[in-house]
C-alpha cells in the first residue's frame, strides 16, 4: 500500500470522527433550542389558561351579581371581561398554532379542547344575556335553579374540567419534552463514548500501522546503510512497510550488490597488482643480489689479487733485501743477481699498484682524500722528488683547489717520469688558471707521439715508438694511472704536440671558485 493511501485513510477516518462529533454537537444544540421553545410555549399556554380561568371566574361572579341583585350599572365591566376572555382564547390559539408549527399535528386535540371551551363560554354568555333581558322575577326564580345548575354544573364543573384538561395537557407536554430530552442526552452520551472509543482504536491502529509501515522500514534502512558504510554487503535488506519503502529497499539491495561486485573486482585487481609488485620486487631483489654478489666478487678479486700477489712479492723482495744486507761475503755476481731480483720485485709491485689504481677508478672506487690545497705546492713537491732538472713556470699567487694532494702529486710525478723516460732532457712544467679551470702542463723535447699513438697512449700497457730500444723501464701504466686520477677529480688529460717537437701533456681540473691568474716568472730547479 502506498503511504499516501495509508495517510489518506487515516485522515478520512479522523475527519469523519471529528465531523460526527461536530454534527452531534450542532444537532444537540438545535434540539435543546427546540425544547426550550416548546417549554416556553407550554409555559405561555399554561399562563394564558390560568388567566382565562381567572377571567371566567370574575365574569361569572359579575353575572351572578347581576342576576341575584339585579345590578345593571356594571355592564361595561362585563364587556371588558368578555373582551379579555376573547383575548385569552385567541392568545392560546396563537400559542397552539406555534406549537403545531413546532411539533406537527399532535396539538390538534388541544385546539379542539379550546374550541369546546370557547363554545361553552359563548353558550353561557348567551344564556345569561337571555336571563338578564327577560327581567321576569318568577321566571327568574324558575330559572334560578337552572342558573345554579348552569353555574354549578355546566359552567363551573364542565368548564373547569375542560381548563384543567387543557392545563394537564400542557403539563404532560412539558413532561414529555423533559423525558425526550433525558432520553436524547442518554443516547448522546453513549454516542460520544462510542465515538471516543472508535477514535482511540483508530489512534492505536494508526500508531501500530505507522510503526510497521514507516518507522520500522526507516530503522531497517538505517541499519542497511550502516552495513554499506561498513563495507558489509552480505545480508540483503528487506525494508517492508509501504510500497515506497519496499522499492527503496530494492534500490538499496541492488546498490549493495553493485558495490559488492565492484569491491570484489577491486580486491581482485589489488591482489593482481600486489602479486605483480611482489614478483617484480623479487626479480629486482634477485638482480640486486646478483649485482651485490658481482660487486662482492669483484672486491674479493681485488683483495685476492692484492694479497696473493703482494705476499709472494713481499717474500721475494724481503728475501733479496735481507740477504743483501746480512751477507757480507757475497760475490759481485751473486750480489748483482740479488739486486736484480729485488728491483724486479719492486717493479712488479709498482705494476700491481698501478693496476689497482686504474681498476679502482674504473669501478668508481678510487677514493680521494680531498682537501683545499695550493696546486703550486703539489707541483713543487713532485718536482723536488724528481731527480732531473725541470723548468717550472708557476703563478705568483696561490692556486687553490679541492684535490687529493697525494694522488695528484703521484700523477704529476708520473708525467715527469714519463717525460724523462720517453722524451727529451728539456722538461718543463707550468701551472696556469682560466676562469673555469686550473691547468698543469708537462712538456718535453723528445720525439713525441704520432696521432695514432696519442689516441692509444691511455690504454694499459701501451708503449709508444719513442720507448722502443731505449732500455727504459716503465710499468706501461703511467698514463692510465694519470688519467684515472685526473678523471676521478672530474678533470681531463690530453696529449698535444709541443711547438718545435716533443710531447705536451695537459691536465685540466675544473674550478669551483674564481681566482685571477697572474703569469709567474720562470724558474729553474736543479738537483
Amino acid at each position: 500500500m502506498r503511504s499516501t493511501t495509508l495517510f489518506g485513510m487515516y485522515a478520512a477516518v479522523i475527519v469523519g470522527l471529528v465531523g460526527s462529533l461536530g454534527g452531534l454537537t450542532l444537532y444537540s444544540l438545535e434540539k435543546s433550542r427546540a425544547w426550550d421553545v416548546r417549554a416556553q410555549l407550554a409555559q405561555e399556554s399554561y399562563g394564558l389558561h390560568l388567566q382565562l380561568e381567572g377571567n371566567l371566574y370574575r365574569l361569572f361572579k359579575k353575572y351572578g351579581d347581576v342576576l341575584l341583585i339585579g345590578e345593571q350599572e356594571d355592564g361595561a365591566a362585563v364587556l371588558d371581561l368578555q373582551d379579555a376572555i376573547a383575548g385569552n382564547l385567541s392568545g392560546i390559539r396563537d400559542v397552539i398554532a406555534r406549537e403545531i408549527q413546532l411539533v406537527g399535528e399532535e396539538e390538534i386535540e388541544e385546539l379542539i379542547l379550546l374550541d369546546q371551551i370557547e363554545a361553552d363560554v359563548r353558550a353561557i354568555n348567551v344564556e345569561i344575556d337571555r336571563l338578564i333581558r327577560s327581567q321576569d322575577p318568577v321566571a327568574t326564580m324558575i330559572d334560578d335553579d337552572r342558573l345554579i345548575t348552569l353555574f354549578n354544573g355546566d359552567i363551573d364543573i364542565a368548564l373547569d374540567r375542560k381548563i384543567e384538561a387543557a392545563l394537564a395537557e400542557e403539563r404532560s407536554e412539558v413532561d414529555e419534552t423533559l423525558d425526550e430530552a433525558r432520553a436524547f442526552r442518554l443516547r448522546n452520551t453513549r454516542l460520544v463514548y462510542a465515538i471516543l472509543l472508535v477514535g482511540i482504536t483508530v489512534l492505536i491502529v494508526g500508531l501500530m500501522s505507522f510503526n510497521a509501515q514507516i518507522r520500522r522500514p526507516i530503522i531497517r534502512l538505517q541499519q542497511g546503510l550502516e552495513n554499506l558504510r561498513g563495507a558489509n554487503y552480505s545480508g540483503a535488506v528487506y525494508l517492508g512497510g509501504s510500497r515506497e519503502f519496499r522499492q527503496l529497499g530494492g534500490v538499496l539491495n541492488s546498490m549493495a550488490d553493485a558495490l559488492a561486485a565492484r569491491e570484489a573486482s577491486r580486491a581482485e585487481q589489488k591482489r593482481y597488482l600486489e602479486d605483480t609488485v611482489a614478483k617484480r620486487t623479487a626479480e629486482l631483489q634477485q638482480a640486486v643480489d646478483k649485482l651485490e654478489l658481482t660487486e662482492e666478487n669483484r672486491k674479493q678479486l681485488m683483495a685476492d689479487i692484492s694479497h696473493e700477489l703482494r705476499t709472494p712479492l713481499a717474500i721475494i723482495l724481503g728475501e733479496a733485501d735481507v740477504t743483501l744486507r746480512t751477507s757480507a761475503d757475497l760475490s759481485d755476481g751473486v750480489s748483482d743477481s740479488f739486486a736484480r731480483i729485488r728491483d724486479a720485485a719492486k717493479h712488479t709491485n709498482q705494476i700491481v699498484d698501478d693496476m689497482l689504481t686504474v681498476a679502482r677508478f674504473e669501478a668508481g672506487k678510487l677514493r680521494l682524500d680531498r682537501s683545499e690545497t695550493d696546486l703550486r705546492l703539489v707541483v713543487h713537491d713532485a718536482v723536488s722528488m724528481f731527480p732531473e732538472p725541470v723548468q717550472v713556470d708557476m703563478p705568483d699567487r696561490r692556486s687553490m683547489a679541492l684535490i687529493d694532494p697525494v694522488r695528484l702529486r703521484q700523477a704529476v710525478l708520473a708525467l715527469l717520469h714519463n717525460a724523462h723516460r720517453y722524451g727529451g732532457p728539456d722538461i718543463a712544467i707550468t701551472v696556469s688558471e682560466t676562469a673555469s679551470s686550473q691547468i698543469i702542463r708537462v712538456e718535453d723535447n723528445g720525439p713525441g707521439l704520432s696521432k695514432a699513438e696519442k689516441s692509444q697512449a691511455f690504454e694499459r700497457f701501451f708503449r709508444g715508438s719513442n720507448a722502443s730500444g731505449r732500455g727504459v723501464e716503465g710499468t706501461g701504466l703511467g698514463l692510465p694511472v694519470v688519467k684515472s686520477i685526473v678523471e676521478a677529480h672530474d678533470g681531463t688529460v690530453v696529449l698535444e704536440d709541443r711547438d718545435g717537437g716533443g710531447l705536451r701533456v695537459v691536465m685540466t681540473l675544473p674550478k669551483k671558485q674564481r681566482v685571477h691568474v697572474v703569469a709567474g716568472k720562470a724558474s729553474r730547479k736543479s738537483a
Partner: protein
Amino acid sequence: MNILLVEDEVRVADFIRRGLGAEGWSVDHVAGGEEALEQAKANVYDVILLDLMLPGIQGLDVCRKLRARKSKTPILMLTALDSPEEKVKGLKTGADDYLPKPFEFDELIARVEALHRRANCYAKEADDTVITSGTLTFDKSSLQIAVAGQTVDLSKKERDLLLLFLTNQGRVLSRERILNAVWSMNEDPLTNVVDVYVGRLRRKIGCEGERIVTLRNVGYRMT
C-alpha cells in the same frame, strides 16, 4: 729492542726475523692472534709488528684487545691490503703506523725505529751532546768535529751524513734511507748524490773514513 712479530706466513716471518736480527734487535715470532695476545701479556715489547690477515682472531681484533688492556706498546700493521679504507680502519683501531706489503726492508727498519723513538720521547738522544767513536769526536752543541784531535771542516750535509753514520754504527744504511734522512727525499732518486757525498766525507775524515764500507747493491755501513 724487543719486537713481537705476528705473521702467519712463515716465509715472510723468516726474512723479517733475519733482517731485524741483523740490526741487533731480538724478535719473537707468533703465527696467530691468540698466541700474540698471550705473548704480549707475558713479555714487554718495544714494538709489535702485526699482520692483519690472521687465522683465528683477526689482526684488527688483536689490536683492539691490546688497546683495551691499556697496552701502550707501539703497533705497526703489516698487510697486503693497502686501500685507504683499510689503512684508516687499522689506524682507528689503535695501530700507530701502517706498512703495506711488499715493503723495502729499510723502510720497515726506519718505521720501527721511529715508533720506538716516539714511544721514548726522544729522551736518550738529547742527553748525548758529544759522540766519540774511535779517534772521532762529534760535539752536537758546538758542531765541532775532530779526528785524532785535528778539527775537520765539514759542510752541513756532510755533518748530517756523519751524524747518521755515528748514530747507526754497525747498521746497514741504504741510499734511500740516507737520502730520506739527510735530503728529506722519499722516492727512489735515480741519482748518485749519496755516493758523491759519502766519498767526500771519507776523504775529509781521513783514516776514520775507512770505517765506512760500501755494501754492493745495498748501501753503506759504519763499522
